[in-house]
């Protein structure tokens, strides 16, 4: 979003606000789902949009707008947990050290590549994950991912929240958050690499 659009948005352009919803609604649902669960994520994000609508005039554009919206959605998610007297407890909050790196099988015992990465055909970030077949596989991967991994991935790589904020929100140590993020990214890399190599996943 450029500065002119931002100014229009702050000054009350409804079509631009609707575009904001179009662009970010599903990412916000994905962001809060690991925190409140899929049954309550929609309600949380609906309430977050009300808050964002009320505060948009104060958005200065210093942060990425996805990050700004993500903070509002996470605050709503925390409020929802408090209202329901629930705590944020992931069953597998600490990374399972026995669980190997998703890319471990790609290496020989000596640490060199056994199955090097394929040469990906797509070099556009916007198109890479949007191919219809891959998008379906990606959705399944994300749905099946442990909630703590998914939460860190959505917060860091989709909403671009800073690491200290992620650790505070999820009550995980920085080292655990790093391991969780690495595993989530490695799972994604493995999926995309296989798709690029074989055309299926």
């Amino acid at each position, binding site marked *: 979003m450029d500065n002119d659009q931002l100014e229009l948005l702050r*000054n*009350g*352009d*409804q*079509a631009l*606000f*609707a575009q904001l*919803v*179009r*662009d970010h*609604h*599903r*990412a916000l649902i*994905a962001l809060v789902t690991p925190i409140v669960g899929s049954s309550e994520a929609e309600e949380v994000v*609906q309430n977050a*949009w*009300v808050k964002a*609508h*009320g505060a*948009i*005039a104060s958005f200065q554009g210093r942060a990425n707008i*996805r990050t700004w919206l993500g903070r509002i959605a996470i605050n709503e998610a925390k409020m929802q947990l408090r209202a329901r007297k629930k705590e944020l407890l992931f069953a597998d909050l600490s990374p399972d050290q026995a669980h190997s*790196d998703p*890319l*471990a099988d790609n*290496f020989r015992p*000596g*640490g*060199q*590549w056994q199955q*090097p*990465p394929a*040469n*990906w055909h797509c*070099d556009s*970030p*916007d198109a*890479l*994950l*949007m191919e219809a077949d891959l*998008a379906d596989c*990606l959705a399944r991967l994300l749905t099946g991912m442990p909630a703590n991994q998914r939460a860190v*991935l959505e917060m860091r*790589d*989709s*909403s*671009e929240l800073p*690491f200290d904020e992620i650790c505070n929100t999820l009550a995980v140590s920085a080292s655990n958050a*790093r391991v969780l*993020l*690495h595993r989530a*990214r*490695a799972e*994604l*890399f493995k999926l*995309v*690499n296989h798709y690029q190599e074989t055309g299926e996943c």
Partner: protein
Amino acid sequence: MLKCRDLVAEADLLLAGELSWQRRLAIRVHLLMCRHCRRFMRQFKLLLSAIPAMHKPASEAEVEQVMQHIQQQGGKPLDQRPRGE
């Protein structure tokens, strides 16, 4: 000596700028020698830049539902606000 597996394990820290200069130097030397790792790093960075766009846009029905919810909660349609509010 740094192995390909080490580079992959440390790629996140490298991109986050959290490795020592000695480790960064070791990775740079390794990348000069290893085309597989160069490809990995190039494609790993591409993947990370694609993640913010991995969620599809909301449907028109979803957008309409959100806009209606805002109005029901007392939010004025944005384009009816005075300019500069």
